[in-house]
């Protein structure tokens, strides 16, 4: 342990990796009391008076640390607050080899370390189709028009000044890329929940229901049954949205995210919010809405975001994200510190409504127990579940299974593949399994 405290008497920043390779091995060989020993060793290595008192208890208690015996920093030292310097590990990351061009790639949200249901805006996953821009809001416009004049009385243009005067709504919704977990359709491919499930985030969005704008333009709901949403980026990303969802009031033109404006990577200053539907439809940098009488077969619903089935047919306009869940702690790539009590925690969500129940298994799906759901449970939002677990040091396989308010039960890999094969890329909502071995190491496995 001495290498961790090689400058006795000085304030140490927390080590980046608390456990060295040797220590991980120590856990593996059953020396699970090493943490306690490390505190004693740490005390012994510090200044002389502490050595004398080490046997009396934890030096972190017996000796007041500098932050307890000195003056702290004044207000507004960070006018825009930032996370603690000890929180440098949880970052958006790319999966190597997934895409060759950063402008058409993905960065994954670090679900393994997040709590509750709200994703910090700076850790929201990213998926761009032709790079991102920081758009000047004073120059951004939203146009609403019809594919022909009979569908809409008056095509209109709105500025941010104007949109932000309209009646607004604030709602919490999850957004999941249709390709989330897509790397795992055929076999295990990535090590951690960040890469298996990290194209998933949840925010409170504030904006104007799209129906307010369409009605302000005099839409003819009888004829106009589809909406085309278009972005202002280079790709001018387009997707077809069903008018039924707009009429329900759920689809929003959002400018707010978690109490502030949208982040540029998430569509600043305007994005479409299409609750329950895959992220690609939540068009970022939204600049135009067209109402039409037919779907549009845009590139991202005719070449990509189509689900290849064993028949050789592609499912087109597959939009909803069916019920899914994943245990985020403990999860793949992590090591449990010791035998004993753990709070097993995870996320569940459904594009078809509210989560009704989440079950957790510790034996690979032979037996299940119902987890605690942290309410209030919101419509088409992430839902946090927790359950108690006392690890006896023996191998285990952890799974979670979501059930939504329609009664739909999240399927196993075997069930999903029996219908859809392994080449769909999109809409993999299978039950995730994490295998725990005696050393405490957790890894990604697939149970059929």
């Amino acid at each position, binding site marked *: 342990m001495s290498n961790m405290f090689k400058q006795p008497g000085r304030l140490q920043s927390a080590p980046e*990796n*608390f456990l060295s390779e040797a220590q991980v091995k120590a856990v593996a060989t059953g020396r699970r009391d090493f943490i306690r020993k490390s505190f004693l060793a740490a005390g012994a290595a510090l200044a002389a008076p502490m050595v004398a008192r080490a046997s009396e208890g934890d030096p972190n208690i017996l000796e007041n640390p500098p932050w307890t015996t000195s003056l702290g920093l004044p207000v507004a030292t960070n006018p825009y607050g930032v996370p603690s310097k000890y929180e440098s*590990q*949880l970052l*958006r*990351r*790319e999966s*190597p080899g997934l895409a*060759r*061009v950063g402008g*058409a790639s993905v*960065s994954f949200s670090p679900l393994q370390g997040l709590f509750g249901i709200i994703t910090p805006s700076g850790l929201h996953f990213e998926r761009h*189709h*032709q790079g991102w821009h920081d758009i000047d809001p004073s120059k951004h416009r939203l146009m609403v028009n019809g594919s*022909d004049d009979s569908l809409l009385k*008056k*095509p*209109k243009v709105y500025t941010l000044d*104007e949109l932000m005067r309209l009646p607004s709504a604030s709602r919490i919704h999850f957004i999941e890329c249709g390709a989330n977990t897509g790397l795992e359709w055929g076999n*295990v*491919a*990535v*090590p*951690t929940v960040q890469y298996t499930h990290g194209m998933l985030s949840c925010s409170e969005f504030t904006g104007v229901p799209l129906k307010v704008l369409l*009605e*302000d333009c005099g839409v003819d709901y009888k004829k106009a*049954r589809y909406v085309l949403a278009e972005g202002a980026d*280079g790709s001018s990303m387009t997707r077809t949205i*069903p*008018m*039924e*969802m707009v009429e329900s009031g759920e689809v929003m033109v959002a400018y707010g995210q978690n109490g502030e404006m949208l982040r540029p990577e998430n569509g600043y200053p305007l994005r479409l919010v299409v609750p329950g*539907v895959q992220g690609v439809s939540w068009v970022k940098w939204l600049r*135009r809405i*067209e109402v039409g009488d037919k779907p*549009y*077969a845009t590139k991202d619903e005719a*070449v990509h975001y189509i689900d290849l089935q064993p028949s050789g*047919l*592609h499912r087109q*306009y*597959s939009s*909803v994200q069916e019920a899914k869940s994943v245990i985020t702690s403990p999860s793949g*790539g*992590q*090591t449990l510190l010791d035998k004993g009590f753990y709070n097993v925690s995870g996320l569940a969500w459904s594009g*078809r409504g509210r989560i009704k129940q989440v*079950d957790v298994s510790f034996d*690979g*799906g*032979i037996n299940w127990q119902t987890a605690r759901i942290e309410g209030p449970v919101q419509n088409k939002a992430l839902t946090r579940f927790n359950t108690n677990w006392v690890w006896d040091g023996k191998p285990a396989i952890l799974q979670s299974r979501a*059930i939504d308010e329609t009664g739909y*039960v999240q399927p196993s890999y075997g069930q999903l593949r029996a219908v859809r094969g392994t080449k769909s890329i999109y*809409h993999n909502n299978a039950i995730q399994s994490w295998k725990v071995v005696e050393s405490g190491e*957790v890894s*990604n*496995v*697939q*149970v*059929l």
Partner: protein
Amino acid sequence: MSRFSSASLGLCVTKTVLVFALFSASTAAFAFDNYKGVGRQATPAEVKAWDIDVRPDFKGLPKGSGSVDKGLELFEEKCASCHGTFGESNEVFTPLVGGTTKDDMKTGRVKGLSSGELPQRTTFTKVATISTVFDYIQRAMPWTAPKSLKPDEVYAILAYLLNLSEMVPADFVLSDKNIAEVQNILPNRNGMTTDHGMWTGASATKGGMGNGGKPDVKNVACMKNCKTEVKIGSVLPDYARDAHGNLADQNRSFGPVRGQQTSAGAAAAPVAAVSGTMDLATKSGCMACHGVNNKIVGPGYNEVMTRYKGQPDADTRLVAKVKSGGQGVWGAVPMPPNGHIKDEDLKTIVQWILSGAK
């Protein structure tokens, strides 16, 4: 004056709609032109400027035409650096063409999709609507200069792609007049289905698409003794465990768990803050093809620096090369000319590359 009269006209329409709404219970909340001072009518020129989408029934298709020959010329100049001269390159994006047969053109179903013979799905093995390809090239291509192509150029490039796919002869001229005929021979035109439960609008029986949200996979919530054995279908291969950087660095250093020590590996680099010049290089489109420490389609800046290191005229030579483009120095994929970058910016970028791109 004219403003005043158009406003009164708007008011009249509003009244009519409100009266209508009173008699139509289902649209009671309908509020046309109801938010005073918010929004204005789009001008015809504005709608024309932005409404460029082309639908499968070709609504929105601009008039124009382009030949395979012209398309080849344009493709080499503007597209080949990413897609390869024959649209077959897998370097930057998945290939555009390949994997389709004459027989597929007859049936409208790409056989390789079900037989498993396809090593990789190309654009033309998937797409069922030729409008999609036209629309996308027009709105989003080329990669670093989207919306710079005129309609005739889009027709020409699409004609070249159709020729590469062996759908049309080398002397073919594609136009708004004959594009519907191309739709009729598109290899995967019958390859899509909407018969599933994942469309969130009305079902096919109600004039929409799909089965109205009925799931295709069914599980039951069994709680006890649900099976006799646990079948593991797949485990994490060692190379995959090590391919995402050191997992210990991707977890907190306190709490119930620690991240595992894995070999640092190549990437999983956090999304880094960009330097001023990198920002400039990104804006100028350089980063689409070059990485700082890695080849993308063109060489990494580290390789460029190594090659030109110590040469006294390196910066002027490199500026000229970037400006006029070239092929052969780093391989077969050509670098397009970059006349759009200002000279001073180009100098800044080149000096930045030669000094290590930091």
